[in-house]
């Protein structure tokens, strides 16, 4: 006789996600309202962005526990909105992400100014759970939503002269109040070598946690290069320039001895002011060892064959 053990959890017992979320929202609202009575105006419920439909899981995902949403969206370096870690979440509401266009210039067959809505229609979106390692020796695990940078690069058809891409962020001190002070030279610029840009790990992200990218995380479209330090992953992109020579990058311009063009995560090469050997995963107490190329060495180490990464840091 076949003894069938019933499953531990019957499908009928599973709370539908929408109900579960409503419950959480209710609890959050209740808690905040309660606190709000004591501290009017000090606390507000984090506004969640719109859900992105039709996102398929992509390759290269890690099964590590993602960093909580509130930390990913509340602890940011985005100097255009202030130099404190909580400044971007507090100030980025002034950024208008629609209408938004991305200018493609330089050594390409199809230069142009492309509307973000069009770009979003060109490629299917996928979810990629990547590790992020900040040059300040902290790290996160973030479920991004986006598409490979290579898709966009190939679509605009770079010429044989295009060896690098320079990325440019919006420059508008009215929308980005941090730009009213010359903390860095604005607009923020970054760059990749063409083979890095074409690597399947390099992602253009438009969302995280299945939802539209919050402004403080680089809305509406940002770069994610998970084997490099976070400052390389430029936010709120308005321009891609395809160029022959290695382009200028913001942090390299500000302090060349501390921030190289390549910025590959490398535990063996210290930042002058702190060791890169270890890192603190946000939410954890003890530090963990930093992995070469942030754990993506198997995929990307080949890009740097024959290069002295102590010099090309």
């Amino acid at each position, binding site marked *: 006789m076949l003894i069938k053990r019933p499953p531990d959890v019957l499908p009928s017992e599973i709370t539908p996600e929408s109900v579960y979320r409503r419950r959480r929202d209710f609890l959050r609202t209740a808690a905040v309202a309660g606190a709000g009575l004591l501290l009017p105006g000090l606390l507000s419920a984090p506004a969640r962005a719109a859900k992105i439909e039709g996102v398929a899981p992509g390759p290269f995902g890690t099964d590590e526990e993602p960093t909580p949403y509130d930390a990913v969206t509340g*602890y940011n370096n985005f*100097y255009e909105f202030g*130099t404190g870690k909580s400044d971007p979440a507090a100030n980025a509401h002034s950024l208008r992400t629609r209408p938004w266009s991305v200018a493609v210039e330089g050594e390409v067959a199809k230069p142009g100014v492309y509307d973000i809505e069009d770009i979003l229609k060109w490629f299917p979106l996928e979810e990629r759970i990547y590790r992020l390692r900040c040059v300040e020796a902290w790290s996160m695990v973030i479920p991004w939503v986006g598409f490979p940078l290579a898709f966009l690069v190939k679509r605009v058809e770079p010429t044989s002269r295009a060896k690098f891409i320079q990325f440019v962020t919006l420059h508008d001190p009215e929308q980005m109040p941090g730009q009213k*002070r010359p903390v860095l030279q604005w607009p923020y610029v970054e760059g990749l070598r063409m083979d890095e840009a074409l690597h399947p790990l390099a992602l253009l992200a438009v969302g995280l946690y299945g939802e539209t990218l919050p402004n403080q995380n680089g809305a509406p479209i940002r770069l994610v290069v998970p084997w490099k330090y976070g400052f390389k992953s430029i936010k709120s992109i308005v321009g891609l320039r395809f160029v022959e020579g290695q382009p200028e990058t913001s942090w390299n311009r500000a302090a060349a001895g501390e921030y190289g063009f390549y910025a590959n995560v490398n535990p063996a090469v*210290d930042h002058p002011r702190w*060791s890169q050997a270890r890192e*603190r995963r*946000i939410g954890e*107490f003890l*530090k963990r060892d930093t992995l070469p190329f942030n754990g993506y060495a198997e995929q990307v180490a080949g890009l740097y064959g024959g290069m002295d990464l102590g010099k090309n840091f």
Partner: protein
Amino acid sequence: MKPNPTPTRRVPPRWLKPAVFALCLLPLALLAWRAVSGGLGANPIEAFIRHNGDWALRLLLLTLAVTPLRRLTGWTWPLRVRRMIGLFAFFYATLHLLGYVGLDQFFDWPAIGADILKRPYITIGMSAFALLVPLAATSTDAMLRRLGGRRWQRLHRLAYLAAGAGVLHFLWLVKADLREPLLYAAILLLLLGFRLVRFLRRVHGARHPA
């Protein structure tokens, strides 16, 4: 001959010391409140270290403001609480250091040693703390008597050096936005400049007696 009776001084109110003590504890209370309310953010260890470092430096600068304040206003009551403020500065500096050693590095002594040798801002920060230790250790009346007023005073001028090292420590660790450490540097230069001007005037006055 009988010594002159000490001139009648205005006695500071009895609540002065308890009030300053409570004020100096406020940053600690604020830290505790932030810790339980989630106000330390996603990286509470960094926030803990930063908070205590900020207050160590602010209180240290406050102790250096006492003498200029007395000269300018004639108030004597700040003198009565200077030692307490200085000890609180040492208290927050200790929490700051413990945060780095225990929470940030988790007592990884080789890593801490390498940090001290390799990174100027850690080296200078450690020096600032080391300079504060003899000041805290000789803060009692008994130590003042044992050392004698002049020697004690000379020793406690190390506070100038400690504050300078503290400001430099802050300046060197900031990546790009230097406003806050530069503000502290300006305050320190003002407070030390006041002393320098007085010193030069005294030397000048001694050479050319009026």
